[in-house]
């Protein structure tokens, strides 16, 4: 066979094999290094600090684990969170992340490496991203070949969609969960391919780890059964499927029930019923197959077929009855919000209020995945070419994850791995085709006029190679389906065609790398605890108001003081200020959050008894009006109102907070409810004084604040940070004379008291 460039001939097969495996190991090592390195922007640009909100809780929990040991962590009751309800942390947490850090920490200390637990936490996510790259390599290798695997590993290593959740300091469950997700899927595919109970068991073990690590485990719980079900429907039932699925399901479910937070959910809730149903179905099908193999008569076979169908129907009916009776918990609201994007806003505002639960905007697909999003469909289509069992898996995964990623920004994370895998399959097919130096043998005379046209099409569409590959693949399938009799020689003639395509592909890859680096460094590496802005001379200016306020609380308030704030800041207050909070980011109690929302959106007189009942000593609000920091509490205020309205529809009504024209205003046209609300008062208290008593401008909303600012009777200002981002108020105690504080304040300021009437006495008859 002829080749385009000449190839060296005198190399033994073993040398080739050794060299390729060495190169693969080297490539994987470099990919891991790149994956870790690109996640360190956050540490270099800022410092080694825990990011955002949830990681602060994980970090705090890990510290407890490291200091007191696993059993104390297991039984940890946190009396400072959700005051006064408290939080049974051991039973309401996915402990996988903390346990992983604890193991690493103890391992390092066993070898006398005194690494601080904070650094273990900060660097855990980058470390696991290297493992994710490896797991993706293994998974993609099962799909196509090692070279596709290497491409997939490289993609997942630096793709922003995954980096967004795994930069250094982003110490969240997702940091280890994506590795576990990919590795469990790999083990499942391996188990399915070989019909191996060992791999099935391993898949179950990693499934257990995943359950212990992230609530998103339900994705695996449903993906594998759907795959098995589709294989069944495709008539691909085999002993391998039976062994792989049953070993995974039995061991995985039993072990997942050992996680206290999960408990009996795998047998009690609708989200887990699919897996159980498929398990039952497999038993029936296996039994039927067994019977069929032993019984020859046609009638008997029909009988088994009927009994199988009726048994399946009976099982489904039983499931419906049990749901109806309440033995199986129905689908949760979170689940419904996946089907109806408007559902959460209507019924569970607490979920809708989280920005990462919003539907995904189109640009963010490009931002997070860049050119992979174009290759992704091509890769999925190529999976149809072979359509082995594992390809079915990728196709289902792609469909399901694409839908979910469109519904929720957050679920972009689950889409990213399959995009990387599919894109790698597509790109590696392209490269295989064009790097392959073999020239095709000369075509038959009948084919001669067809082929050049086809290759010419490839050349002319070189600019959009993804489309080209897709179209050529489709035509391949089309041709394969059309004419199976004559096998056409396929291939590329000449070096120039190859170079054009390869240069193009490499160019795209280079652009991808630049894009990923830019997105990572500019968008995904901000700790959000520390804000950065630019000085006029271009140098970086750090705005550190959050930590300033939290450290003020830590240093100046009693140890058992309770701080009320909107739930976003609960974990940070607990982690950095070490003070009790009413609500935090573990939004388990809607009523408690609504109580805070009500206090924030009511007048002082209404809010004060609530504050006192909950022993609140300080109230913390975030105010961005001075700096133009848009993520402040006034912008979140409507969510507080909505959530409070959900529980107290008679007392709090959203329309009251708008102007009659339906505008959301904070200037002198603001509605009375708005102006009298605690949140408004705390945000703009003394704000106009800052501007010398006039023309105070709120830079977030671009509105002028009235000259006479709000007054506070039941709270007093305790602390305001440098840039006014965090304002802390102290709740005043009851008046010693038993008056309400408004009257007491008026008296203290020397205002004349209106002479009150004595209510209950008889009136004189005139």
């Amino acid at each position: 066979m002829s080749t385009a460039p000449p190839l060296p001939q005198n190399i033994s097969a073993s040398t080739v094999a050794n060299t390729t495996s060495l190169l693969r190991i080297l490539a994987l090592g470099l990919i891991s290094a790149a994956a870790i390195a690109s996640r360190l922007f956050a540490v270099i640009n800022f410092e080694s600090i825990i990011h955002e909100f949830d990681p602060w809780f994980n970090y705090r929990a890990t510290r407890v684990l490291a200091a007191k040991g696993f059993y104390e962590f297991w039984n940890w009751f946190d009396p400072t969170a959700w005051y006064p309800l408290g939080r049974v942390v051991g039973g309401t947490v996915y402990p996988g992340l903390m346990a992983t850090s604890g193991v690493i920490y103890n391992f390092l200390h066993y070898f006398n490496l005194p690494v601080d637990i904070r650094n273990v936490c900060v660097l855990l996510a980058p470390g696991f991203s290297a493992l994710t790259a490896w797991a993706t390599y293994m998974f993609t290798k099962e799909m196509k070949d090692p070279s596709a695997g290497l491409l997939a590993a490289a993609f997942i290593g630096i793709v922003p969609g995954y980096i967004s959740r795994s930069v250094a300091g982003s110490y969240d469950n997702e940091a280890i969960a994506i590795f576990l997700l990919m590795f469990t899927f790999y083990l499942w595919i391996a188990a399915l391919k070989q019909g191996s109970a060992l791999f099935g068991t391993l898949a179950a073990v990693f499934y257990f780890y995943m359950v212990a690590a992230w609530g998103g485990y339900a994705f695996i719980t449903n993906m594998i059964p759907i795959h098995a079900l589709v294989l069944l429907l495709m008539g691909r039932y085999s002993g391998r499927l039976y062994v792989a699925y049953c070993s995974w399901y039995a061991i995985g479910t039993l072990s997942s029930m050992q996680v206290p937070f999960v408990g009996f959910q795998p047998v009690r809730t609708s989200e887990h019923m699919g897996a159980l149903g498929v398990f039952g179905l497999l038993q029936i099908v296996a039994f039927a197959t067994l019977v069929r193999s032993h019984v020859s008569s046609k009638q008997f076979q029909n009988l088994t077929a009927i009994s199988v169908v009726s048994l399946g129907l009976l099982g489904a009916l039983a499931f419906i009855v049990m749901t109806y009776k309440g033995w199986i918990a129905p689908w949760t609201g979170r689940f419904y919000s996946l089907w109806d994007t408007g559902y959460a806003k209507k019924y569970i505002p607490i979920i809708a209020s989280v920005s990462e639960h919003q539907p995904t905007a189109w640009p963010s697909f490009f931002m997070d995945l860049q050119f992979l999003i174009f290759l992704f469909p091509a890769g999925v289509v190529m999976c149809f070419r072979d359509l082995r069992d594992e390809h079915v898996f990728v196709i289902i995964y792609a469909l399901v994850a694409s839908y979910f990623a469109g519904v929720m920004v957050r679920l972009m994370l689950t889409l990213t791995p399959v995009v990387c895998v599919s894109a790698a399959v597509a790109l590696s097919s392209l490269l295989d085709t064009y790097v392959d130096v073999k020239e095709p043998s000369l075509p038959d005379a009948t084919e001669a006029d067809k082929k050049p046209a086809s290759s010419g099409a490839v050349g002319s569409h070189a600019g959009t190679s993804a489309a080209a590959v897709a179209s050529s693949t489709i035509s391949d399938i089309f041709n394969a389906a059309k004419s199976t009799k004559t096998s056409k020689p396929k291939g590329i003639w000449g070096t120039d065609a190859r170079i054009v395509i390869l240069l193009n592909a490499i160019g795209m890859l280079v652009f991808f790398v630049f894009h990923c680096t830019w997105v990572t460094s500019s968008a995904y590496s901000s700790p959000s605890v520390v804000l950065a802005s630019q000085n006029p001379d271009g140098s970086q200016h750090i705005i550190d108001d959050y930590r300033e306020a939290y450290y003020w609380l830590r240093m100046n308030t009693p140890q058992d003081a309770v701080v009320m704030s909107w739930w976003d800041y609960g974990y940070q207050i607990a982690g950095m200020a070490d003070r009790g909070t009413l609500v935090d980011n573990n939004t388990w109690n809607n009523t408690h959050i609504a109580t805070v929302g009500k206090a924030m959106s009511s007048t002082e007189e209404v809010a004060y008894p609530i504050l006192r009942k909950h022993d609140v000593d300080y109230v913390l609000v975030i105010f961005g009006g001075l700096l133009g920091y848009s993520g402040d509490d006034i912008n979140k205020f409507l969510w507080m109102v909505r959530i409070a309205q959900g529980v107290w529809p008679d007392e709090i009504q959203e329309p009251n907070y708008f102007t009659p024209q339906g505008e959301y205003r904070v200037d002198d046209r603001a509605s009375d409810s708005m102006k009298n609300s605690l949140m408004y008062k705390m945000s703009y208290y003394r704000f106009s004084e800052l501007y010398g008593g006039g023309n105070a401008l709120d830079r977030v909303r671009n509105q002028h604040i009235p000259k006479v600012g709000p007054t506070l009777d039941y709270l007093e200002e305790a602390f305001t940070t440098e840039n006014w981002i965090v304002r802390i108020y102290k709740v005043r105690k009851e008046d010693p004379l038993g008056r309400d504080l408004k009257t007491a304040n008026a008296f203290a300021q020397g205002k004349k008291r209106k002479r009150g009437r004595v209510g209950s006495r008889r009136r004189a008859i005139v």
Partner: protein
Amino acid sequence: MGSKSPSGLIAKGYTVTLRAPKDEQPLLIQDGLPNFSHVTLLASDNKHFAKDITPQSLVELLTLGTNLMLTVGPKQNLLTSLAPEFSLLLPPPATPLVSFFPERSDPANVVSIDIKSKPTPNDTFSVFSAAVEGNIWFSGTPFALGSNPLLFPILSAPAESFAADLTDAPGLVSDALVEASEKGGEGLWAGSSLAVVAGFQTLIGGGTGHGADSGPGEDKQARVVWVGGSSLFSDEFANKKVVEKVKDEQGLKVVEKPSANKQAALDIAAWAFQERGVLRIDSVSHRKVNTTGTPEMYTTNDEIIYNVKISSFNPINRKWEPYSAIKDLQLEFTMLDPHVRTALPAVRSIPGTYSTRFRAPDRHGVFKFVINHKRKGFTHLHHTATVPVVPPRHDGYARFLSAAWPYYAAGDAREEKKSKKE
């Protein structure tokens, strides 16, 4: 001032500093700290006072724990604007208490009040000691009491007395009073619902027992006594005889008795200056049954024993003595709402100790032991202690579950099989 109180107070061991209304020194509050433990304002006829004596500074004195004794005069002055803060309603200026009964030679605005008519503030506690007997001479302004629960009458006006303006004698009722009645309602300025001496016990912070207001704080509780006229304390009234007509065999007989003013004044001062009715919580302890030492947290359904030691101040030997006489002490175990509310009876064998035993609710959370005892005349007792109640530990659950008997049976069966094989 011609008052008998200072000598009586000095005899009790008080150091008395006298200050004329317009003297600038000594200041009531210096550098944010009160200069005196108790302050009495007897200059009721004055209209103007020194700069540092304002309604606001008097209230500040109360928050700093200084007791006040205030006497209201016929003219309007700073007390007129202070009184509403205590929900005390003063009649219009120059309308003293007037009574024409019983018939007597004294002017109508010098009223004798029978002390035994009603124990004040209630049956469990009386400001006046048993030594006060007979009638008290009073001349001055009465006041109506508003709805503030911290306020109570110490000495009520006689039933047949009323507030009136004596200067326009023919009508007896001034326009100002009519106007005030219009506002306040009929009968506001007449009868025994008027008080001539009223007591007020201040609240201390409400007390969440948490953060900034943890700790007892009884020492910051202050008392205020409002007196309708300073003549109550005067020597003239103390020496003035009370003329009574007593029935005997020969018909009516006129008996002259000494007035109770002197002892009453001392008793009023004793209550105001926190000699009587002063309680405090010495110590609080709680523990699990069958253990010693206060635990950091309780488990749900634990049996808890709660003890509190209360003592009262004995003014005679100036010592705190155990006090077991509270009959209605209650303990609450609250998380947002009281989950347990139980009586806290006195322990007979140990004086001053109150104890109870109860089961923690089957509910985890941060609970508070709350004692909130507010009775008129006594210092308020308020104490909270925060304690988390946690679910059982992972190894704290029952080992044998009745629901699991099939599995136990299966296990037994296997064991038997095994042993048979061997």
